């Protein structure tokens, strides 16, 4: 996994609550057996005016000029600013895959759906929780300032605005450690294989029907 330490990135605002993973990556793209190439179809139904299917040449499709991420000023954004309960619905990891492939490394929202939140960390992405009031402020600043960038420092757990305002965020210590060092979860867990085997033996003795 790619490590994440710091980022100074352009911010794109998506001013909606409850953005679900069906919206982030519609189901027709889930037929793929790969884990890359989803970025061109991120937010497909909002981003394009025509209906998208896998295998289409997306450069020839009709762009929806009203969709915020299509605006010139947000091209190249790596930080997505959004509202509460982002990533709700389906557990599809294709959603963080699509966002990451699109270019987002950091998401800032007041809250996330649990499964999506967890899936982000498995893909070197950092979902940051800030209070609804701070987020309101950031939305206005982004709207009023073309080229608005934020600096994110995972080690210090801070988001810094262009004017130098610092917002602290909370991140689970284990997830932070994995992200900072780009550690692969499976490799880490395999270091505990003796403990797993020991547990399994005890578990089998206590509930033998689970192993019948």
């Amino acid at each position, binding site marked *: 996994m790619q490590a994440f330490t710091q980022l100074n990135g352009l911010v794109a605002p998506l001013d909606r609550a409850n953005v679900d993973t069906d919206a982030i990556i519609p189901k027709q793209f889930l037929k793929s057996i790969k884990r890359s190439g989803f970025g061109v179809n991120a937010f497909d139904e909002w981003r394009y005016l025509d209906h998208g299917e896998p295998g289409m040449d997306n450069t020839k499709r009709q762009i929806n000029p009203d969709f915020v991420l299509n605006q010139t000023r947000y091209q190249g954004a790596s930080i997505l600013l959004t509202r509460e309960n982002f990533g709700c*619905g389906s*557990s*599809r*990891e294709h959603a963080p895959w699509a966002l990451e492939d699109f270019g987002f490394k950091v998401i800032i929202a007041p809250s996330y759906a*649990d499964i999506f939140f967890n899936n982000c960390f*498995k893909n070197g992405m950092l979902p940051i929780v800030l209070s609804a009031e701070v987020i309101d402020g950031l939305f206005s600043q982004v709207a009023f300032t073309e080229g608005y960038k934020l600096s994110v420092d995972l080690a210090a757990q801070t988001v810094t605005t262009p004017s130098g305002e610092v917002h602290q965020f909370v991140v*689970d210590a284990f997830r932070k450690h994995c992200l900072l060092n780009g550690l692969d979860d499976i490799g880490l867990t395999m270091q505990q294989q003796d403990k*797993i085997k020991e547990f399994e033996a005890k578990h089998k003795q206590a509930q033998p029907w689970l192993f019948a």
Partner: protein
Amino acid sequence: MAKTLYDKLFDSHVVHEENGTALIYIDRHLVHEVTSPQAFEGLRIAGRKPWRIDSIVATADHNTPTNGWDKGLAGISDPIARLQIETLDDNIREFGAKAYFPFMNANQGIVHVVGPEQGATLPGMTVVCGDSHTSTHGAFGALAHGIGTSEVEHVMATQCLVQKKSKTMQVLVDGVLGRGVTAKDVALAIIGKTGTAGGNGYAIEFAGSAIRGLSMEGRMTLCNMAIEAGARAGIIAVDDKTIDYVKGRPLSPKAELWDAAVAYWNTLHSDSGADFDAVVMLNAEDIQPQVTWGTSPEMVVGIDGCVPSLELAKNEVQRGDWERAYAYMGLTANTPISEINIDKVFIGSCTNSRIEDLRAAAAVAKGKHIAPNVKLALVVPGSGLVKAQAEKEGLDKIFIAAGFEWREPGCSMCLAMNADRLAAGERCASTSNRNFEGRQGPGGRTHLVSPEMAAAAAIAGHFVDIRTFN
């Protein structure tokens, strides 16, 4: 100290714990074609094998067609979908499984219907699947939740998941549900109260006399929708109904193991006096048949209600959501729900495709016919076994005579990955679980209801109150 059911299930599976992050052991891993190929590929690249093959039970469901089965795999016209289904076949052949029900197998079906009916889901288990509706299995007093594909690979490789303990929420529903009010209505009424983010960070335990009164099918419907309230897991204590349901299933324990299992399962309830981090209470008598009006399951009202007006929105953000929902759904505030006409009906999904759901819908449809404005009314059984049972009872004939289409099992128009979908602007009464924009097809408009309410809407051509419908 008095423990909640969640505490008991979690604590009994902790392999290792450090600074609040635990490694928990997984007993059952359910696998389907959409969220597994990248996980198997990851194993292959790293040269890893599944830790415990006999924990894996797999089936193809999300992408499979619900008609044209006479042509076999060749009948899947979409080559990308066919490849994904074949990839699951290949992966299971290469890596192995305790049980596999491939496309068109007599036991194939929606993974959350198949697991319980095979006895692959047992009380006290930890159950995972790369699907958010894995919460369904919590109906058996199991700790069950959806995971992403990286975690699917992690569980395959290590039999464990890295987890932080959730907070606990008790949802207490006491009283007796009125006639025509189902588990689906209870689920939607709860979500209407908590909101779709209300359960974020929590495991929900559903309790109270109305929950105890539900059948196992009803409990599965309720736990299935815990995720729509934001909770990864929903659980219900084990009782005699749970044990009766599990008994005699192909993968259930037998003989002396059965007795030992039952003795343990009978301890799977929250201790009296156990503390929950949050408690939500509803009176069963207050719950009406529910219909969603918008693009999130929390946008829901009783059948005698109206599309709510903006003054009722709790804040600016919700006001914006509602305005977008009105536009997307083609509805205006204050429209009575019973005046909303529908174009299509979908009876199916991991929420409502079990035999009891089909019986309830068939009882409404019997001797009647779908309205002329209803272009398509689909009935998609949850599994091959549900379909066979329904046909034995003659339910298929009732549906067909009433103008419904009787299809092969699968996820179908719940998520519209296969050919079953809504066209833009079409309005559907659906027994599924999500009314998100585009969920049942781009531009499609979904209203979530119970099977009875969906069948009644099919007959009437618009939503009707099942309590007075005949």
